């Protein structure tokens, strides 16, 4: 009896060791590249980096403008739309909801070429709006806002305000908007992470222009890789076509992702709760 219990305990501890070894390997796979990045970035000659900082600053400002403008429009359109779909009754409401959910489940990259063709047609190709407007269409934000405003407790507040004589605009402005802060913050977070890391859309909109002054950061990274000329053919010896030293690239990569990492750390609560993350794709 006693020996049986002992062997059971030993078995569990072997199982635990296997579990932790496995987890350590997994952790290494995910985290070693990031550690390498930090070590490489600060181990290099910072003098080499300073030369590229100026142009990097322009791309950083562009990324900030595009993401901030996109998120501002997203929030201004998503919150009222979700509010109305949840609390109002109007013909077309259900069609709008289903269309919204359908589009939120379509990968944004599926619409990149159509958007390019549209932008080409209306001559908006190299305008900042060619990226800002697509970033600002955020059906998932409408869905989140819709779920949020379905809360029964909120609806009692809205009804009370109406009985007290508030018009619809006042109900929204004085009650719904202040209540929307948590969901608005989540919309901003998800929208900014998506637009900050987007490569395909700005690449398609801006690659044809000679000027790099419109580039957001991901295109700046691509440019670091593109310093050489492409022959379009298989090269006998494959090497990176970049003249920048690895430490400089690592530093710039780190600078690129730093804002997103800060946002991620701030948003840990949501990430851990896990309810909304599938939509980051």
């Amino acid at each position, binding site marked *: 009896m006693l020996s049986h219990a002992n062997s059971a305990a030993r078995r569990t501890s072997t199982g635990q060791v296997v579990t932790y070894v496995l987890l350590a390997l997994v952790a290494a*796979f995910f985290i070693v*590249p990031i550690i390498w990045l930090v070590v490489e970035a600060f181990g290099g000659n910072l003098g080499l980096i300073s030369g590229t900082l100026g142009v990097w600053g322009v791309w950083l400002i562009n990324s900030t403008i595009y993401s901030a403008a996109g998120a501002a429009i997203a929030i201004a359109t998503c919150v009222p739309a979700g509010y109305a779909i949840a609390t109002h009754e109007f013909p077309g409401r259900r069609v709008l909801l289903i269309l*919204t959910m359908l589009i939120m489940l379509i990968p944004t990259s599926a619409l990149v070429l159509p958007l390019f063709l549209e932008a080409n047609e209306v001559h908006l190709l190299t305008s900042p709006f060619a990226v800002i407007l697509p970033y600002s269409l955020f059906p998932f934000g409408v869905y989140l806002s819709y779920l949020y405003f379905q809360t029964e407790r909120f609806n009692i507040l809205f009804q009370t305000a*109406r009985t007290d004589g508030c018009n619809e605009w006042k109900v929204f402005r004085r009650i719904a908007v202040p209540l929307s802060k948590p969901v608005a913050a989540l919309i901003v977070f998800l929208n900014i992470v998506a637009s900050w890391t987007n490569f395909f859309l700005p690449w398609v909109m801006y690659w044809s222009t000679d000027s790099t002054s419109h580039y957001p950061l991901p295109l700046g990274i691509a440019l670091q890789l593109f310093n050489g000329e492409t*022959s379009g053919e298989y090269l006998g010896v494959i090497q990176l076509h970049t003249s920048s030293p690895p430490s400089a690239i690592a530093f710039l990569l780190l600078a690129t992702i730093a804002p997103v990492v800060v946002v991620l750390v701030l948003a840990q609560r949501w990430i851990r709760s896990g309810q909304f993350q599938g939509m980051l794709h």
Partner: protein
Amino acid sequence: MKRKSPMRPRKSGYLFVAPYVVLLVAIGIYPAGYVVYLALTSLSAHFTGLDNFIDATHNSYFVPAFENIIKFLGIWLTALVIFVVGLSLLLHSLNERVSAAFRFLLYLPAALAGAASVMLWLFMLQPGKSPWGFVLNWLGYHTLGDSLAPAHLPVVFALIAFWSGAGSWIVVMHGALATIPRAALESAKLDGAGAWRTAVYIKLPLIKKWIAYMVIGAFAAGSQLFAEPQLISEATGGLANQAWSPNQLAIFLAFHYDYFNYAAAIAVDLLVAAVICAAVILFRTGLFDVGH
């Protein structure tokens, strides 16, 4: 079931949804309609039926691009199902603080999604530079060219996509596992089920829908692959050719040859696949509240 109150306002709803609807039409519906129109017409705007779709398949890059993407999807989806489900179940059996720390750690590479992760992995795959150099040497890869040999590319792209994307799916699975009633797990324990049996017979069936969602969603997203092959192509001077994936091919035809109608036909192929995936997730998995 929520009762519809007779006091629910009506017309003012249009004012609140109007800005969003304008954006939805201009950025979502109109371009989708326009690309379908281009795909069905010729350069001189004559209706051509399915001609563009058929002609596009005759392009010498067409079949290889779809073969490439299918190989990539096969590897990536298999890896996602095995590792994301396995890791999520494993983490769920640990205590909450350890599990939470791990989830955050695994999620962190999401910050490098897109161009940044490709750039980083170009160094990770360079035997002389990479902290994984010993693994690469052991595999017999001594130069970046060995790591990026054309036959390796589907695996390489799957590796990069997994590294930056698996964490967010693990977080989703965790969310799904967290909804399993404690009572179900307690009674399994009382019945003598160990951690393994509980995972396979109780937890797995309860998150089946989420696994289906992940597979379909990842299929839809993965079939759009662009940044990885494009950047590797640019970084190595055309090792992966500029039409490795269908999306690249569509862009390639549009940019280099102004074949907008062929490009539109390929874009429509991909869009239709994405819409079907979205519709299946929405109407068949039962994960979303489609209103009432």
